[in-house]
Structures are given as structure tokens and as C-alpha cells.
């Protein structure tokens, strides 16, 4: 191939790349744009003009206030925090202890226990729904924050333990032996050596778990009934009426609900990327 032809080919490839990438981004962003536009329209405008991606004529920011107060989003968001924070903290605390043991202790059933954790991860929700509902009823913890938190923690344990164990496995074993010689107990080694070293993976996991638990609809649906303790996803589902749905308020509520996970993601983004690629190369 001549030099000119090759540079033309390169230019064509670059153009093709940018066109495709732009199209993909547009498709990806369209629902978000529609959501933002809808949240700023009046119901009249939505009904009068069904073209969803048309920008609003006038910006009705008061939709957000209405969603927060009248539609109860404020209460739902607070509830979701009450559920999400202890769930994430609990899952991380318990799974990091389990991961520590699985990564560093040599015992007969080590592999078997790990496989059990992974297998637990693979059981589909549909199979667990009814047993979990009956179990929580039987224990009298249904329709309570505590019950939901407990189930969130237990269902996240499999993945969290697997994830953290694999990360900790990359920490050299001498990081256990050196403090042991220095006189540290195993819990001290966990708390003061291994946890600080595993921090990137903990942070990455915290972001993932926060988003998952925050956005969970199904377990809340199964375990919560009272409106006073409902989480955002249930609240949003509630806003779909049988005869009329206030699309603008639902959209505004959705945006409000998305703020927390987005903020958490941005705050921990650095660790997130570091954590997921950790171990890809030694350095």
C-alpha cells in the first residue's frame, strides 16, 4: 500500500471510529436525556406533546420539590440510606473476615468453603424469593429495616467474599508471617496489615455494593410492606398509578434517587478503577 493510501485508510478508520462511538454514546444517553427533560416538563406539556426527547418549553424545577415532599421521595431516600449503609458495612465486615481466613489459613475444607460461597452467588432470586419471605415471617423480621438489612448482607456475602479473597490472595504470605513474628495476633494482622493493604479492593467493592443495594427493588418488594419504611425503588414503583402516572414527578424522583449512587461512585472512582484492574500487572 502506498503512503497516501495508507494515510487515507487511517483517516477513514478514525472517522468510522468516531461516528460509531458517537452513535453509541447517543443511544446510551437518550434515556437519560428523556428523563431529565421529562422531569422538567409539566403534565400538560407531556400529554400535549408525546415527543419525549423534545426539550421542555419552560423549566419546572418545582417538580423536584414536589417529588421530594408530596410524592414522599425524601422519606424513601432516607429509608434507603438506613438500609444501604449498614448493609454495605455489614457485608464488607463479615466478608472481609471470611476472605482473610480463606486467603491465608490452610485448612482442609478451604477450597470447599470458597466454592460454597461462589455457588451461593449463582442461586437465582426466583428460587429464593418464597423461602426467604417465609423465613422472615417465621422469624418475625419481615417488614422491618433489620430484616431487609440482614438478607442484603447474607446475599452479598458470596460475591464479596469471593472478590476480597481473590484480592487478598495476591498479598504475599510474608505479610502474615512478618507481623506474626512481630507478635501480632491474627485479628491484629487482619485489622492493621491486611485491611489497609486490601483498601483498594474494599473501596471498589463498597461502590459496587452501594449501587446494587441502593437500586435493589426485588428484596424490598418481598420483605417490606409499610409505606413508612419503603425504599426509593419501591417508592418510584408506587408512583405509577392505575389510571394516571405523573411522569414528570416519577422522572424527577428517579433523578433524585440516582444522586446518591452517582456521588458515591464519583467519590470512589479512583479506587474503583484501581481495584478492578489490580493484579492485571505486577507493580
Amino acid at each position, binding site marked *: 500500500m502506498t503512503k497516501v493510501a495508507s494515510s487515507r485508510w487511517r483517516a477513514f478508520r478514525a472517522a468510522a471510529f468516531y461516528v460509531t462511538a458517537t452513535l453509541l454514546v447517543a443511544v446510551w444517553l437518550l434515556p437519560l436525556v428523556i428523563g431529565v427533560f421529562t422531569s422538567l416538563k409539566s403534565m400538560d406539556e407531556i400529554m400535549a406533546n408525546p415527543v419525549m426527547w423534545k426539550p421542555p418549553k419552560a423549566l419546572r424545577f418545582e417538580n423536584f420539590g414536589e417529588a421530594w415532599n408530596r410524592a414522599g421521595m425524601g422519606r424513601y431516600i432516607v429509608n434507603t440510606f438506613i438500609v444501604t449503609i449498614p448493609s454495605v458495612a455489614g457485608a464488607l465486615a463479615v466478608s472481609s473476615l471470611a476472605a482473610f481466613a480463606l486467603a491465608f489459613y490452610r485448612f482442609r475444607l478451604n477450597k470447599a468453603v470458597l466454592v460454597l460461597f461462589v455457588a451461593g452467588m449463582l442461586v437465582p432470586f426466583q428460587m429464593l424469593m418464597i423461602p426467604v419471605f417465609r423465613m422472615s415471617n417465621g422469624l418475625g423480621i419481615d417488614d422491618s429495616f433489620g430484616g431487609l438489612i440482614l438478607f442484603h448482607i447474607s446475599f452479598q456475602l458470596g460475591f464479596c467474599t469471593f472478590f476480597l479473597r481473590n484480592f487478598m490472595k495476591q498479598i504475599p504470605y510474608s505479610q502474615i508471617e512478618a507481623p506474626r*513474628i512481630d507478635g501480632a495476633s491474627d485479628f491484629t494482622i487482619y485489622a492493621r496489615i491486611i485491611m*489497609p493493604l486490601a483498601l483498594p479492593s474494599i473501596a471498589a467493592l463498597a461502590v459496587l455494593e452501594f449501587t446494587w443495594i441502593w437500586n435493589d427493588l426485588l428484596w424490598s418488594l418481598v420483605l417490606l410492606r409499610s409505606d413508612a419504611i419503603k425504599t426509593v425503588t419501591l417508592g418510584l414503583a408506587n408512583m405509577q398509578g392505575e389510571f394516571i402516572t405523573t411522569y414528570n414527578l416519577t422522572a424527577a424522583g428517579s433523578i433524585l434517587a440516582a444522586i446518591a449512587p452517582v456521588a458515591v461512585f464519583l467519590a470512589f472512582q479512583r479506587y474503583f478503577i484501581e481495584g478492578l484492574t489490580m493484579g492485571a500487572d505486577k507493580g
Partner: protein
Amino acid sequence: MAKVELKNIGKVYEGNVRAVDNANITINDKEFVVFVGPSGCGKSTTLRMIAGLEDITEGELLIDGKLVNDVPPKDRDIAMVFQNYALYPHMTVYDNMAFGLKIRKVPKAEIDKRVREAARILDIEKLLDRRPKQLSGGQRQRVAVGRAIVRNPKVFLFDEPLSNLDAKLRVQMRAEIIELHDRLDATMIYVTHDQIEAMTMGTKIVVMRDGKVQQIGSPLYMYNHPINKFVAGFIGSPPMNFLTVKVLDEGGEIILDEGSFRLKPAADHAALLKPYAGREVSFGIRPEDLVVAEGGSAPGGLIKAKVTVVEPLGAEIQLYATTPTQPMVAKIPPHHLYKSGDEIAFAPVMDKARYFDRETELSILPVKFDEQA
């Protein structure tokens, strides 16, 4: 201060893999004992059993007369320097050194005093605020040593601490560790596969092979009185030459016949070689004991050989030569002008020669397994 005794110590790993077999070693107070041997000989496993990082399968381990087989490492009052340093990457140098003391609830002022003292000894005072990542290999090594000395333990354990350093730094750190031993007056156990480190550092050497202790003694004793062919070949660089010779009893006079040359052993050696008359033995001679024969004869006889390679090292020449069948290496003074292909005659120092049984590989001359025992 501290005496460490290994009595019939053995280690068997899962799957019936034997790493250490019936080790009997006594390490006296203030000794610098080096465990040396090729990789896989069980020296590190032995050290790790002393540290408490490996369970002891059989035998007894005593520190200061107290049985410590089942005592966890933290209660054995030992400190260890690891091969890969094993510094805590998220802590500063200061915190790395202070960690063990903090765990033991030593008062803050005392910790500070000890850390700064250790830093001064090791010349790392300026690095106290840095993290391990910001240090060179040699500096990390110093911190690892510092972490051990602040604890002021009964016994120091070193697991191939210099093997990750470059050659020049290794020589320097070697001297510093020797100096440290003199200064701290501590009991030290040091593992290495490098026989030069063993020779230069140890007050006592333990040579191991295939999980078995071969011989125990001072470096010079080992060098001059190796118990078997393995120890003889392992200690010393370049290694001892082994030439297969036939022992002849010619009317009461013992002669060693190689085919291309004949030698007369030293009188006390001849008596011990007499029972081997008619059989072959390994004649061991150190490279420096192959002296170039200036005249035409020597009382013990001459080895005639052909020069193959000449390596002038400046202060001396390493000269490789071969008889029609057997190669050897000699260390000769630098003024000799030999080149490849030349004929050469050596007058071996027969007093220093060693003899080994061809089958058992054991020394035919009497030697102690444990010099001090």
C-alpha cells in the same frame, strides 16, 4: 542470653514429603550459625521451624532449655529478617520498625528511643518518614534488619536476606551484618545457599543436603576437614578437585595411580589408605594446593596435565587443566605465563589432600561430624 537446641527435629509435609530429617544442632549463646546448602536442602524449613512459622513434625526444639515446639512465634522472643524483606508497604519506615513494639505495648518514649537508636546504627535516620516503596533494595534490607533489632530478641533469624541484592551491595551488607553481630552480641541464625556468605559470616556452619545435616563446624574446620565429598565440593570456590585414583600397595608402600601419573600420599594418610589397596578412591585436592612444579620432580610426585583454559583474575590465575581423562582447576600465582594447550606439571600439597570412599562418598581420613561435640 540464648541457646537454641534442635533435637532429632524432622519435618514431613502433607503427601509424605520429608523436608528435614533428624536434625541435631546446638546453637550456643552469641554464636553466628549459618545453615547452608543447595536449594531444597531443608535449611529454610529448619529456620522456619525455629521461628514457629512451620509446625515441627518430630523432635524437640528448645530455646534456653525450654521446650517451644508448641509455643507461637510471638512468645518465642525471636526476630526474623525475610528474603523479600516483608516490610509493611502502607507504613513508614518508622512505623515498620515500631510495629512490633507497639503490639507489645512498649511505652511510646521507649519505642521512639529504640527506633532512633536502631536507625542510627543502620544509618537510615533520614529515611524514617519514607515508605518502603520509596527505598532502594539495600535500604529496605536495612529497615528489615532494623525491625528485628528494635525488638532486642533472644535470637535473630535471617532467611537468605542478601539474595535480592546486587553483588556489590551484598558484600557491603555482609560486612555490616557481621559487625552487627559483634556489636549486639546476639545469637544469630542465618540461612543462605551461598557458601561464601557461610564461610565469611558464620562462627559455625551447618551444611545441609536433602533434608539431612551433613556436617557442623567452624568455617575453617569444614574447609580443611570435610566429612564427605558433598561438603568438600560445596565449601570453597572454585570447588575441590576430585580425581579418581587407584590405591596400590607396592611392597608396603602406598601409591596412588591415576594412569597418567602416580602420587605418594602423606605418611599418616597412607596408613588409612592401606585397606583400600587394589580399589579406587576419590583423591580430593583444593585448587590452591595444586602448586606449579618448577623442577622436574617432587617428593609426593607430579600431576601432568594439559592446560585447557586460563582465567587471569589479576591477583591470581585460575587455570583449568586436564589429564587424558580427568579435569581439574588450579589457583596459581599471576606471574605464570601459561596458555591453552601447554603442558603443565603440578606438585600437589599431599598433606592437604583428602580422600573419599567411592561408594559411600565419606571421608577416609577421620573427621568429626560436629566439631564441638
